[in-house]
């Protein structure tokens, strides 16, 4: 392996390793985590690579402490990340909320497995998709990416770091066991890796208000030791960062946590469309299920069915407007997911009755057969 943070070149690696490399390329220099299948290869890679690039890896005592350390690491001035799978993601929820409330940039990769509970530790699942949006108590906007290959594990982890800094919040990479363990070609090109720098204060310490937002609704961040003497709290706080427990402050603060994502959707949301122009039926898909959906799409087209695919690159915030637009053009929408019906609810909501929406569920532990998706498409015609 190389001592360089950016392993420019062509590699053959699995999704977990690519995720770690993406983080390093994006400037991550602090990783705290706790081993869990199918995530452990990320932690293992980080334990090897962090010392090589002058960063710090620590294996914490659990996921509660891993995420807390990552928040501390970010305030300490380092780009920071943790990675886990369902059980650990559940344990992280309270401090994910702290990260949202205190507007702390960091990245959390969730390599999903069959769930609930211990579920299927070594097999694929997409059961944590709703948890990513609603898992911690209260209201806040969420940004989550759903990679479908090791290459995207690299690329989307870089994106996640940039969005975390740009919007000052924890950002999720919602992968799964299959993507994490799949070994494919990953091309790393340093000219393609852009870095969004930390939003440092632009005024003197006397004038600085840690939670005074810019026009894009995002504030600036003073790291520890920079002389700004910030106070950071999970209590509802005013722009100075001091606790202020009243309805007006709650409205301003929490409203902004939602709005900074909602009102910047045009910048955040990414989807990919395939065969959409003449589509009469649509597949909306993400992550590993998208790869199976591609098989179904090809077979449908071979049979002369005018099918199209909307693939969610970002699953959160949900692309309501785009889905609504497409729903007016098609007879029906099929949503294959490796869960018993999560993102399909969002599709239904966005569709607002314009088209029939049909879930193709999978309980986890394996993948759909492309024909299952194909049959659902045919049934809608």
């Amino acid at each position, binding site marked *: 392996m190389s001592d360089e943070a950016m392993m420019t070149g062509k590699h053959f690696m699995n999704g977990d390793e690519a995720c770690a490399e993406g983080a390093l390329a994006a400037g991550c220099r602090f990783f705290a985590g706790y081993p869990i299948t199918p995530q452990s290869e990320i932690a293992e890679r980080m334990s090897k690579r962090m010392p090589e690039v002058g960063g710090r890896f620590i294996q914490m005592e659990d996921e509660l402490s891993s995420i807390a350390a990552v928040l*501390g690491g970010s305030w300490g001035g380092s780009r920071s990340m943790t990675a886990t799978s369902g059980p650990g993601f559940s344990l992280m929820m*309270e401090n994910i909320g702290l990260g949202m409330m205190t507007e702390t940039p960091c990245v959390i990769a969730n390599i999903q497995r069959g769930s609930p509970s211990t579920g299927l530790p070594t097999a694929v699942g997409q059961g944590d998709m709703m948890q990513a949006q609603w898992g911690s108590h209260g209201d806040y906007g969420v940004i989550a990416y759903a990679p479908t290959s090791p290459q995207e594990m690299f690329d989307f982890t870089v994106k996640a770091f940039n969005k975390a800094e740009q919007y000052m919040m924890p950002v999720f990479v919602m992968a799964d066991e299959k993507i994490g363990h799949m070994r494919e070609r990953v091309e790393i090109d340093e000219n393609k890796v852009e870095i969004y720098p930390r939003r440092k204060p632009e005024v003197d310490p006397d004038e600085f208000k840690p939670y005074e937002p810019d026009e894009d609704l995002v504030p600036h961040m003073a790291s520890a030791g920079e*002389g700004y003497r910030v106070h950071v709290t999970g209590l509802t706080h005013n722009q100075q960062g*001091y606790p202020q427990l009243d309805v007006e402050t709650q409205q301003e603060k929490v409203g902004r946590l939602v709005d900074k994502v909602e009102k910047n959707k045009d910048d955040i949301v990414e989807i990919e469309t395939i065969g959409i122009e003449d589509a009469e039926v649509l597949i909306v898909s993400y992550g590993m299920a998208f790869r199976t959906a591609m098989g179904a799409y090809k077979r449908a087209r071979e049979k002369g069915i005018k099918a199209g695919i909307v693939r969610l690159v970002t699953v959160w915030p949900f692309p309501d407007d785009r889905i609504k637009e497409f729903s007016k053009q098609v007879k029906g929408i099929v949503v294959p997911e490796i869960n018993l019906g999560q993102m399909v609810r969002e599709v239904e909501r966005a569709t607002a009755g314009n088209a029939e929406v049909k879930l193709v569920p999978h309980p986890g532990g394996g993948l759909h057969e492309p024909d299952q998706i194909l049959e659902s498409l045919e049934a809608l015609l």
Partner: protein
Amino acid sequence: MTTELKQKEEVKPELTSAEHPATKYLREERLPHIWCSGCGLGSAVTSLTNAYEKLEIPIDDIGVVSGIGCSGRAAGYFETDSYHTTHGRAIPFATGLKLSNPEMNVTVFSGDGDLFAIGGNHFIHAARRNLDMTVICVNNYNFGMTGGQFGPTTPRGATATTSPYGNYENPFNLPDLAASAGAVYVARWTSVHARRIQQAMEDALSKKGFSFVEILSPCPTGYGRKNDLGEGIDELKSYQNRAVIKHESDPSEAEIERDPEAEIVVGNFVDIDRPTYCEVADDYLQSQ
């Protein structure tokens, strides 16, 4: 919340009155503080600012991290980089802060419930790793903020809102726990020992590695009145009578009984040298 509002009415601005150089470590615009009259927290905060002042630690090198509780509110009063985190997670947050920014002098200031009930696991692991930080625990034998429930340091037999028949659980002996988990500096004092506390804090702050200072502190609202100890001042008097200084004594013999006559061992229990987490890590990595 109701407890907090009640506390606000009873505010006592003891921290503001001190025109002392150490007040530069305090966010004066946030005072008066929320703590009850007779609470030991104000004096513990003052001791810490005095220790910073004595050691001339630059304000901008200090990071204060608290969890949740009355004690956890302390972080909000320090005019330093200060972090009020979640219940139990002050130490892991501080771990990240320190590892990411090793130049910072990191102090964790929190309560017995925060550090030893919900956060107990993090305490022993941070001590085991010998992370370079100072942990100050204000032990008031109960969960003050939530209305005086029993906790992991409540003496057996003591009354609390969730031990109406007397606490039948065995409490932790904190110096013993800290010492056996690997802390390199361990001291215990009570709120009457202002000068000793400050000295212990200076020692702890100067010490490389995981140092621990326990302050036995009155909480008239949550603990004292329910246990016939009277007001804060009465609890202080009882400490004066009960405290016996035994430096370097065996911390396993420093159990605390509820009996208002029983002796309480205080002093410096541990002061040893052991390479810190970062020192060991860097040695290993460099030798590869």
